[in-house]
């Protein structure tokens, strides 16, 4: 590269928060037209770094150069004016408005709606992102919503596009479309800063990578030339354990769901329609599917948060469809929902209190209605120790933990209660590689010990790694489970349905 190609140069950026150094003397360069990966575990400081570039955070030290000129955006507006755009992991869209209206809301000075719709169409065709400006965002899939966010950025013709973990909500086909779009953008000279901890994606997509660990740059590499395990080692700081899997001879049937239907709880919810499955001791069933196709609803129906018609759910022959969460826990059906803060755990309550939340009965943390806080604290300590939860102790509030650590706590809380059947939604979402491996291992160990596991996940690699059977949730319907042996990623993509959107996709 020569100096004139240099788009963004980050030099010695540091940013500290009370008790944690998010970025420590970080330097790297982005060249025009390249796809540059920012690779690191959760908590490595990737988000802080890109928020600095996008003008959301002011660094404590260091400087940035854009096109060779000093660049210190005080607000995202300044960053956008300078040609830096960002697509966040969490979308900020209004479900009740149309695509074009949502795009207009983000603009300083929106053009007339018809003109805007035309520009949206033009950009979406140019970059192969099928998207109709008139559709209501509430009706769009996660992948389509992401396209809204991307188009919103592209309308400003950015020089640098930052993508924060963009594939976490996409189907394999949608990921392919996204990658084609990103490559096309790069060819046209837009640099892309691509944040991820998924090594396969980075190998497939990125020209160069900067690897962060605990706020520091620990290496630069060219992903195509370096093995994934080498990158993982740089990222984690040690070699990652691949979960060991033993096939268990399936035992007696534990859980049977037959013809489970539930109307949606809210207008944007999904109805469950005639879900049936049988689960045997020692078995793990993986349930894939794009988010928003009934995953939360299925978990709520199994955990007992929502009751269903009599006879639709039986546990070891006993009808539990009309039993609430407490009764189901007593019988050995435990669960861990996707949303950690606010659903699986109360954010402002301590880990001890959160241990009490679901373990009061099963761990005998209670005697005749009176709570045994010392026993709960001991149980919380055991979770922290056994699941390597990084926290000062059981008395800190749940929201003080990083996402990955809280997830380890939530999973550990249920696993240590030795469930007969364990239902988990997105067990490793936003969790770093080492912790994800530990969680998967815990699920496998549960099955080896004779429990049955339902693992709902958007991470197909994860499901292929641990599940014996695989099924897909699509618009509230569950496909017939198929053995994971011999199932290809393409088969799965087709099972996942979304195909009708996919075929329209092409890169112009």
């Amino acid at each position: 590269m020569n100096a004139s190609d240099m788009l963004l140069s980050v030099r010695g950026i540091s940013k500290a928060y009370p008790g944690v150094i998010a970025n420590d003397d970080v330097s790297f360069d982005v060249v025009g037209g390249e796809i540059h990966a920012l690779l690191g575990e959760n908590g490595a400081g990737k988000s802080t770094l890109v928020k600095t570039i996008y003008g959301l955070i002011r660094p404590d030290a260091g400087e940035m150069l854009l096109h060779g000129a000093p660049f210190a955006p005080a607000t995202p507006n300044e960053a956008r004016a300078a040609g830096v755009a960002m697509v966040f992991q969490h979308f900020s869209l209004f479900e009740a408005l149309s695509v074009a209206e949502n795009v207009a809301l983000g603009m300083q000075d929106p053009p007339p709606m018809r003109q805007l719709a035309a520009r949206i169409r033009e950009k979406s065709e140019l970059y192969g992102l099928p998207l109709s400006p008139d559709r209501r965002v509430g009706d769009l899939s996660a992948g389509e919503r992401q396209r809204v966010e991307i188009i919103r950025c592209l309308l400003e013709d950015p020089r640098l596009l930052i993508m924060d973990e963009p594939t976490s909500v996409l189907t394999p086909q949608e990921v392919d479309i996204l990658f084609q779009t990103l490559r096309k953008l790069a060819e046209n000279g837009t640099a892309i800063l691509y944040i991820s901890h998924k090594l396969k994606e980075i190998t497939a997509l990125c020209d160069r990578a900067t690897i962060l660990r605990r706020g520091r740059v620990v290496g630069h590499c060219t992903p195509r030339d370096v093995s994934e395990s080498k990158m993982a080692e740089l990222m984690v700081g040690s070699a990652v354990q691949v979960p060991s899997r033993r096939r268990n001879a399936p035992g007696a049937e534990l859980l049977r769901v037959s013809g489970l239907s539930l109307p949606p709880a809210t207008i944007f919810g999904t109805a469950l329609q005639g879900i049936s499955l049988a689960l045997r001791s020692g078995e793990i069933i993986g349930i894939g599917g794009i988010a928003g196709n009934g995953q939360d609803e299925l978990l709520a129906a199994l955990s007992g948060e929502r009751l269903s018609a009599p006879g639709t759910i039986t546990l070891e022959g006993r009808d539990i469809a009309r039993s609430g969460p407490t009764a189901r826990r007593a019988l050995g059906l435990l669960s861990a929902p996707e949303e950690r803060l606010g659903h699986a755990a109360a954010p402002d309550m301590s880990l001890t209190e959160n241990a009490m939340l679901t373990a009061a009965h099963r761990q005998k943390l209670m005697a005749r209605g009176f709570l045994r806080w010392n026993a709960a604290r001991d149980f919380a300590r055991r979770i922290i120790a056994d699941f390597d939860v990084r926290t000062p102790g059981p008395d800190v509030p749940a929201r003080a933990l990083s996402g990955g650590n809280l997830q380890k706590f939530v999973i550990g809380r249920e696993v240590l209660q030795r469930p007969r059947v364990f239902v988990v939604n997105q067990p490793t979402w936003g969790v770093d590689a080492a912790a994800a491996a530990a969680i998967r291992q815990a699920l496998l160990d549960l099955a080896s010990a004779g429990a049955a596991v339902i693992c709902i996940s958007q991470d197909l690699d994860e499901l292929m790694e641990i599940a014996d059977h695989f099924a897909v949730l699509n618009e509230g319907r569950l496909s017939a489970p198929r053995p994971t042996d011999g199932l290809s990623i393409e088969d799965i993509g087709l099972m996942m349905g979304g195909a009708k959107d996919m075929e329209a996709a092409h890169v112009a």
Partner: protein
Amino acid sequence: MIALERRAAPSRFWAYLTPPLAVLLTMAAGAVLFAMLGKDPVAAIRTIFWDPLFHPQFAAYSRPQLLVKAAPLILIAIGLSLGFRAGVWNIGAEGQYIMGAIAGAGVALAFYPMDAWFIFPLMVIAGLLGGWAWAMIPGILRVRFNTSDILVSLLLVYVAQHFLALMAVGLMRNPDGGGFPGSRNLQHYPAAANPELFPGTGMHWGVIAAFIAVIFAYILLTRHLRGFQIRVTGAAPRAARFAGVSPGRMVLFCFGISGALAGVAGLFEVSGPSGQISINFHAGYGFTAIIVAFLGRLHPIGILLAGLLLALTYIGGELAQFMLDLPAAAIQTFQGMLLFFLLALDVLTNFRLRIGKRAPV
């Protein structure tokens, strides 16, 4: 530029400091208010906060009044605080207080002039049930039809007030009262009276009940599953549901217990200090108790202290009316300001102020 930045965890320091700070700010703002009314602000503040307890002449009368006024405030506030912690907004304790008093007095008047040991306990039960039943109306409406608990419970206060007036001039009117509105004076009916237990202390059965309620609430919240469920429901409703708490049952429990405590507070008042069902029986305890609950941080011990403080403003306010000719509304303004400053300062518990520097997002 001043910006508010959310704290990682609520500040314990500010959580403890805001109530006394709010009291001080209220005193300061009250002093300005009194000065604008042309009164000596220092004298006014001293009359309200100091004289009821330490004035050589008046203290003997007003000191026992402290417990008399604090008891209903604490009883009601304890009940309300349980609901407030769970996100159940019973604003209608005033109405439940009135209905408890009517139910309890009704029992007494029905037995009049019989003398039996069981009459007073029966009145207590009737008081509990009267308040409970009145609170069940907003509770059940919320659970069945998703109505606003705030609106329904508040509006039922006015229904209860009219019902009280109806009783005072109708069914419960004293037949020997020469046609004046108001029931027989229960103070003069020994089997139903709630007398001062130790002369000169103001201690009556309601005060004892208030202390029991404080201890009960403390144990409930710190040691018992139900109290834990209340806290989880308030802190994270979805997590509570996941943990097995039925939201509807929680709403009914909170309305029921706050209504019953308000009702029994009304019963102790009507059979004791007030003595009779009359048109102006209600003194606003049900509303002031909301201030008491928040000033006490929804914590039983805090409510005990806040109840005593607000009782002091009642007594001091009366004294100031009588001594300095302050208008009666001034003291209500004063109590209102207390809640206002408290809620405003509460922002500091969850946020920190940043001046001059831009807060990271």
